[in-house]
């Protein structure tokens, strides 16, 4: 007899899972089939052997290891909440962990769709963030939008589009910002077309065609990787991470660079050379260049006093709104400092500063504009006394530097030096300290003509602040003194 059909029943039989009549039939079969009987005994014996396998015990430091592991995982989880990058990794881990909860395929597909949509939305959001928008405007400005074939009035937060034609009238100001990449200001009578606007996940490429008008651009550290090109009738200017100002007239372009560098490419007329030539020039910080259509570009020159003051407006386009002394960040910033550096106080910071200090700063500014050196000196002294007596502000260092800068402007190098020394002694950790020390050395060198002392202070600066930008200046000064 073939007993194959009984085998499964034998297994159920020993577990007591065989229903009444089947069990009875099997009992009868077992009574007469020695093979099945032996098989049954084999299975039973296997089962009892397995049941008797001796259990293992955990090793001695098992609990300790477990608690350490659990603490570690919990700490990681807490940290993950604060870090979005970790959060994405965590999502992966949770997906892996979710195997403890097998879910239906429909849920998995739905979850994947949600994930994909979220990621796409995130990418789109990231690139949308960089699309420049109208931050502020005043005066008569209108924008022609080719897609609608209509003129629209700009409104705050309005996103700009490629092809937009910006038309500003005299006295108008339009601030445009690409979040974390750059800020621009279009001012006075201007006509500018946004010829290209492509925003990626990390970068934004902006091309502007400027028929005429004024534009100021201030890029941020995050600008790296992004591109900006300005096309004027006379030249093309390519931005290399910088703050600069462009004035465009019908057949000439004026370019002034406050920080960083701008590369300009101008066209030279074929009659002047054999073929049309394109000549590239780099304009660096503190320099200006004039470019006329089909002429060789002028060699970049230093700003005049007036130009230098006008370009300070760029500091208003900073990403972070801090009270700051308007000086460059290059090694020539000492020159900016020693000619009455203005103090920029953004509106949102005005509540931080006592009113009497603010009004004195205003008085000093007015006196400078009226070239009244006696009054500049007087107000500077008043401000110094006020700082000495009154409670200090968060911006004491900037204010002291401002005072010293104005003393120097009024041909009062002794007082200037005294205040610079105060900064150096009281705020040696401040970013202004090396600048103050450099100013002292420069005053010795240029104003007091005490070369030995100048040399000594430059050397001290090199020793105390070797990594500062002012150390470069000190090095240059020392080699020229020798």
């Amino acid at each position, binding site marked *: 007899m073939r007993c194959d059909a009984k085998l499964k029943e034998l297994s159920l039989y020993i577990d007591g899972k065989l229903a009444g009549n089947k069990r009875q039939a099997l009992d009868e079969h077992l009574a007469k089939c020695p093979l099945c009987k032996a098989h049954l005994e084999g299975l039973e014996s296997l089962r009892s052997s397995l049941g008797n*396998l001796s259990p293992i015990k955990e090793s001695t430091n098992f609990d300790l290891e477990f608690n350490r592991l659990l603490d570690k995982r919990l700490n990681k989880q807490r940290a993950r909440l604060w870090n979005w990058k970790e959060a994405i990794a965590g999502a992966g881990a949770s997906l892996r962990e979710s195997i403890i909860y097998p879910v239906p395929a429909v849920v998995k597909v739905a979850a994947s769709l949600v994930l994909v949509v979220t990621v796409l939305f995130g990418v789109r959001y990231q690139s949308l963030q960089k699309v420049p928008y109208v931050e502020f405007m005043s005066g008569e400005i209108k924008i022609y939008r080719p897609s609608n074939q209509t003129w629209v009035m700009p409104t705050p937060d309005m996103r700009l589009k490629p092809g937009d034609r910006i038309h500003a009238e005299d006295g108008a100001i339009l601030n445009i910002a690409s979040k974390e990449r750059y800020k621009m200001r279009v001012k006075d009578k201007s006509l500018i077309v946004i010829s290209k606007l492509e925003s990626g996940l990390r970068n934004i490429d902006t091309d502007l065609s400027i028929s005429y008008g004024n534009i100021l651009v201030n890029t941020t550290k995050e600008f790296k990787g992004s591109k900006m090109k300005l096309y004027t009738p006379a030249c093309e200017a390519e931005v290399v991470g910088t703050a600069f100002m462009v004035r465009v007239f019908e057949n000439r372009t004026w370019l002034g660079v406050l920080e960083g560098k701008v590369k300009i490419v101008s066209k030279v007329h074929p009659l002047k050379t054999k073929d049309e030539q394109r000549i590239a020039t780099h304009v660096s910080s503190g320099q200006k260049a004039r470019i006329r259509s089909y002429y060789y570009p002028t060699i970049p020159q230093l700003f005049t006093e007036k130009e230098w003051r006008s370009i300070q407006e760029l500091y208003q386009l900073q990403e972070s709104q801090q009270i700051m002394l308007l000086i460059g960040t290059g090694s020539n910033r000492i020159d900016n400092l020693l000619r009455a550096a203005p103090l920029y106080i953004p509106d949102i910071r005005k509540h931080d500063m006592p009113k009497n200090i603010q009004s004195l700063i205003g008085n000093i500014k007015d006196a400078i504009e009226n070239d009244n050196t006696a009054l500049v000196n007087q107000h500077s002294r008043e401000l110094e006394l006020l700082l000495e007596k009154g409670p200090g502000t968060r911006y004491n260092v900037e204010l002291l530097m401002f005072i010293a800068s104005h003393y120097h402007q009024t041909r009062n190098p002794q007082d200037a030096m005294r205040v610079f020394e105060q900064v150096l002694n009281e705020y040696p950790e401040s970013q202004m300290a090396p600048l103050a020390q450099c100013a002292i050395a420069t005053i010795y060198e240029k104003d007091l003509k005490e070369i030995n002392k100048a040399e000594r202070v430059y050397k001290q600066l090199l020793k105390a602040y070797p990594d500062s930008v002012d150390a470069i200046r000190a090095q240059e000064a020392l080699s020229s003194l020798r």
Partner: protein
Amino acid sequence: MEEELILRAKSGDREAFDELYQRYKRPILNYIYRFIGNRADAEELTQEVFVRAYVNIQRFEPRAKLSSWLYRIAGNLAKNHIRHAQYDKRVASVKKSTYEGSDDEFDVIEAIEDRAKKPDEKLASKETERIVQETIDQLPAHLKEALILCDIEGLSYEEAAKIMRCRPMTVGSRLWRAREKLAKMLHYIKNGETKR
């Protein structure tokens, strides 16, 4: 009361969780050990089971049995471990077969024969236990799961079915096939005797 401990653990009470951990760590450790056959790895995986349980305790529904939930986490981790280990093995393409053609063949047969003479005697010796474990290791994961839960851990078909997320009768069929294979490999039943 286990329910109370679970509620306390859910509210972040680590002491309550520790009590549950002490209660279940050994059954889970043994379950995983039988599943993967390696003690050190089994300890690591057991710790991972309880870490995951603590982290995900909010997701545990109190009407289910905690032990079933823990066994399920353990089973999934063990299966994953085996999958990875098999992949590693394929890559290394070594690892001799425990049975046929192995150097231990003689010892194995001797041990089996010895036990076959006294089938009801407890599998006491370390060596025999090792052979049984190595034989279990050769079973496919789904059969192994049924065998360990029912025959070693002593759970009912219904309890095992909840852990394995299948019907109790499926547990019965898997158990039958596991026993048949194991019994043949360990010579509890003779190969030619009851051929399917």
